[in-house]
């Protein structure tokens, strides 16, 4: 049996099907001239042509109708129409005749032109109007096609530029990655080579102070003390540099074990208290949460605490109190360190945790800082899945906090 399946050329023709309607001047349908899209049911005589459009495109359809009414012709408006269960953008054209409007819509611009040409061959009262419109349409179609070609070219130019930019970005990014790796290697190497001789200087200065203390006069003892302090500060700075370069080259290794935060805080504060007392600063501990053990790198978390506490003492005046609190906020354990120190100007808070950034605030007893401690602290906390934060008010003090997710409960 010879089935009546449409061949490819029929499908191709369907791709530019359209509809042609004669309407009153106000846009009400008078008569459907051609209906290749099976839309006739949707626009019975007397219905507005606008009802053909998808409700979302009704306003555009109204504008189109107004354009046909006022200009006597409109060409190639894309207006969406519900068609066989989908929303399809149709190309619309229209023209005014002596007794009404002729509206044509088709799936493609070519379909529009074809439909007009076909209409112009039909011998009826609209022939002359259709002919006139067709000529305008052909010119408009050529202009539109040319405009589209020019736009395609322009889009290609934009795309070329974006491609060039992308190429340059990837190239530069590769270069930066190489440089960053080199920087980290260099930093690690330099720090290693500096640390050993510094350790020797520091140790021998200590020997000298202890063993030859009696022989030296006051001024000489001060010299030795300066050598010790400076070399220890340098050592601390190199350790921080090593830490930060190790962390930045992705080598933050956490030695996780179940730890009771409360016990860790108690131990740490006992040690820090000794140093704080020298400056007549009191450290108070408030445990406001009863938490079970968390999986932590105890040494690294102590490093963070040491940093927060030594900062609090550095920037506080004698006779004040530093309060350390442990509490729970949502799914996090929070450790905060509040001082009654000088506070930090709001404008400087943002860059506090960036390496080598120091604030305009001076330490109260001339203590030095490397400018790396908070950056390291942030990385360590982030490595545990937590966040660091700071609140501060000039003249009243600062509160540095960090969170640790309770989900890292030791099982």
């Amino acid at each position, binding site marked *: 049996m010879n089935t009546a399946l449409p061949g490819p050329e029929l499908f191709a023709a369907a791709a530019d099907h359209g509809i042609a309607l004669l309407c009153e001047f106000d846009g009400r349908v008078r008569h459907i001239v051609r209906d290749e899209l099976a839309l006739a049911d949707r626009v019975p005589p007397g219905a507005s042509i606008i009802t053909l459009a998808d409700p979302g495109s009704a306003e555009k359809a109204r504008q189109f109708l107004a354009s046909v009414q006022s200009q006597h012709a409109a060409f190639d408006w894309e207006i969406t129409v519900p068609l066989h269960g989908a929303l399809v953008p149709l190309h619309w054209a229209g023209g005014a005749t002596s007794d009404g409007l002729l509206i044509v819509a088709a799936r493609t611009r070519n379909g529009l032109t074809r439909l007009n040409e076909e209409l112009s061959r039909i011998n009826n009262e609209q022939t002359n109007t259709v002919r006139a419109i067709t000529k305008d349409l052909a010119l408009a179609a050529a202009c539109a096609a040319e405009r589209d070609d020019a736009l395609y070219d322009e889009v290609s130019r934009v795309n070329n530029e974006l491609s060039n930019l992308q190429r340059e970005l*990837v190239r530069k990014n590769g270069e930066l990655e190489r440089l960053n790796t080199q920087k980290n290697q260099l930093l690690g190497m330099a720090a290693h080579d500096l640390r050993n001789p510094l350790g020797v200087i520091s140790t021998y200065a200590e020997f000298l102070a202890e063993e030859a203390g009696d022989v030296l006069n006051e001024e000489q003892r001060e010299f030795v003390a300066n050598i010790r302090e400076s070399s220890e500060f340098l050592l601390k700075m190199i350790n921080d540099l090593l830490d930060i370069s190790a962390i930045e080259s992705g080598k933050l290794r956490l030695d996780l074990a179940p730890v009771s935060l409360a016990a860790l805080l108690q131990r740490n504060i006992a040690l820090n208290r000794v140093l704080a007392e020298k400056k007549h600063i009191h450290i108070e501990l408030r445990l406001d949460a009863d938490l079970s053990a968390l999986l932590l790198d105890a040494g690294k978390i102590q490093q963070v605490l040491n940093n927060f506490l030594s900062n609090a003492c550095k920037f506080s005046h004698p006779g004040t109190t530093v309060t350390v609190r442990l509490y729970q906020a949502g799914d996090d354990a929070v450790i905060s360190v509040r001082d009654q120190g000088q506070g930090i100007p709001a404008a400087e808070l943002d860059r506090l945790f960036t390496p080598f950034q120091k604030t305009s605030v001076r330490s109260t007893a001339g203590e030095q800082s490397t400018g790396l401690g908070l950056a390291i602290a942030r990385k360590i906390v982030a490595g545990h899945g937590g966040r660091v934060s700071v609140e501060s008010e000039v003249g009243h003090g600062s509160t540095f906090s960090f969170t640790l997710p309770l989900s890292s409960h030791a099982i």
Partner: protein
Amino acid sequence: MKTSAQLVADKLLAQREAIVGAVVTRMFQAHPELELRWGQAGREKCRQDCGYHLSYLAEAISAENVALFTDYVAWVKVMLAQRGIGEADLAAHFTRLRSVLQERLAPEEFEVAGRFLTAALAAMPTMPADLPVVIGTHAPLSALAHQYLSALMRGERHLASQLILDVVERETPVKAIYLHVFQPALYEIGRLWQTNRISVAQEHYCTAATQLIMSQLYGRIFSHERNGRTLVATCVAGDLHEIGARMVTDFFEMEGWNTFYIGANAPTPSVVATVLDRRADVLAISATITYHVPAVEELIAAVRRSPAGASVKILVGGYPFNLAPDLWQKIGADGSAPDAQGAIALATSLVTAGASPS
């Protein structure tokens, strides 16, 4: 000092409007039905096409290379044949152009220009009206090239991208993808457009998608060991066809050169500045359209006048230079190569010779 051929070419370009006007007027006089059929828009299109023919003719005359023009006519023949305009119409058009030139040029000038038109007219019957498929079935990676192209033709760029990334993941070298997938696919897209089988929109889409997919491979291209040599590459202003030049630049990068591709819209002073700033060993200039060759010549002259001019070697490449193998010499370049591998070999030998004169 300009050659007599160059003077003829200059005259054609200077009188371009008048020549084109005369040809189109005669055409519409001979065929009044065209006016009815195509109207003002058709006349405009004719003027545009005739203007292109004249530009190509002038450049071929200036380069004294007949192949530059006949090859263009062969391209036009295929393009128009697929759009319903036959060889007879095209021949009539060039005959009309020849008689307009005969009237407007001095006899010795017409002798030069007429020779090019006569050669093209004589070759026209043997020029093919259609073009063979570009992607061979036995070429390496040809199956992939076919899959890639058909994915793009369906508008499925994500699939096309995945096809490429999958084979690269399985250690197919990026160079092979460039040579055996992107290049033939792009040539095939050009052929499909020329023979009216795809639209302008499809052509632009396929090129744009290929550029995007290439950029997904950049991570691999820019991780090669450096050899200490630097290439700056550019296209002449206005040339849309940048993708080939960028591919050649990427090949240099994969050979260890440090490359800077500055595209088609860098003004001459900024090209010169880039060559200086980057201390380029080689400047590569690409042109795909024959009548862009004078722009290449001007750019070369500007670079030669600059402080970078003494040390940088200048390579030119692209379609017109492949057709006319000695064209590079005429415009003051140091050499030309038909493909990326040839360009790298030539650039390396020029730089090596320049570094140790013996």
